[in-house]
């Protein structure tokens, strides 16, 4: 499956608009939301493969959002893209399951490459689970 769905969560409306536009131009199916709460609501209804998440947002803390996302959709990969980068939030983010941690401003091509890698990881993960399930049913039968 070469098409995948991306969700971007960022409270800076200008940044959000620009990056959504640029991703769409590269033919990527992308949705942008302005808050962690909105993102979690959306995740109740839709599946995404990769999330690009800012961690310093008012309202729901970015790390809290990340934790909730990994709880609900552990297979979905999250890339943290933040202007408030720090070693501590990097370590925290990755400890709580983020695939990568990127500082703003980020090279757009690099970001696309990371999204592709995140999606690849998700696919490998799904394949692995399916394989385990098949093995288990074989053992049982």
């Amino acid at each position: 499956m070469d098409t995948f769905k991306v969700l971007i969560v960022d409270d800076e409306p200008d940044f959000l608009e620009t990056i959504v536009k640029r991703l769409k131009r590269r033919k990527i199916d992308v949705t942008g939301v302005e808050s962690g709460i909105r993102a979690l609501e959306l995740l109740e209804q839709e599946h995404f493969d990769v999330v690009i998440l800012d961690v310093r947002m008012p309202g729901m803390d970015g790390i809290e959002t990340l934790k909730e996302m990994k709880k609900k959709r552990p297979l979905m990969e999250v890339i943290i893209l933040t202007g408030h980068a720090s070693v501590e939030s990097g370590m925290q983010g990755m400890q709580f399951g983020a695939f990568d941690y990127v500082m703003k401003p980020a090279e757009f091509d690099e970001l696309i490459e990371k999204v592709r890698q995140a999606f690849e990881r998700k696919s490998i993960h799904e394949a692995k689970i399916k394989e385990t399930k098949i093995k288990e049913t074989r053992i049982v039968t």
Partner: protein
Amino acid sequence: MPEQSEVFTLISQRYVISLLIVAAAVPAWFTGGPLFVAGLLLIAWAAFLSTRHLVRQILRTNEQKCSLDQQLIQSQKLAAIGELSSGIAHEINNPLAIIGQEVEWVRHILKEEKVEDPQQMSELKESLFEIARQVDRCREITHKLLDFARKQEPLIQSVDVNRLVEDMARLVEREAISKNIKIVRSYNKDLPFVLTDSPLLRQVVLNLLNNATYAVGKDGEVTIETQMGENGCVNVLVADTGCGIPKEDLNKIFDPFFTTKPPGKGTGLGLSICHGIISRLGGRISVVSEVGKGSAFTIHLPGGERKGEA
């Protein structure tokens, strides 16, 4: 959970088309022949059937996606419970001992002393404050333990180690500069891509870099290198000009909970987690150190072809 917007769009599109066809069929009945109208109605019916089939497919795919997530959550929980007990017993006893004592002290004051006395009142408040503080400490410990216990099965991808290492170096550099610590890089340009788990490797590299800058404190250097090792191994070296590690501690530093930081500050899970992760990636971590000179940690990763678990 069905993607309602998708389903809605599909259904509405198909029904609108079908309705239009039927709407066209009515005047056609009067102008054209019955066969023509029958054809149109057939098309409408076919559209309806294919929509129903598509909707079912979408619902099934979404069900599958949900169940995969559920399976993963379940297996993670089981792994965590198994490894938790001994770790908790060990580290939580200190905060628990303090809480126990504060409770004894509060009991003593309530029984033996004049509670109205402002001095005694402040003792009571202090004890409660301390209890709350130790509970917080326990919470941190159990959370870190849960992360430690969660066996993160490596997911193997082809990784550009130079890129990965440089990303982490840049992250650390931001704060290092303010402490006048220089990050020196030396990357092997011909380094092959490595089959490994990139987020896990990232965590280890970041941990080592963070330890290195902490060891230096301020005014010093942290060096990060990528090298070709023996037997096609790929090495990542993180060296610092910090305080160094005393010889008697060298074989303890990868133990869980070993730490030289004061109680409450960092539970020392960093290096033991790193060690566990690199072992699971088929590699090892080695260290050389000299007190007063600095330390150098090397991650040795198996390079080249590796039978991935995927």
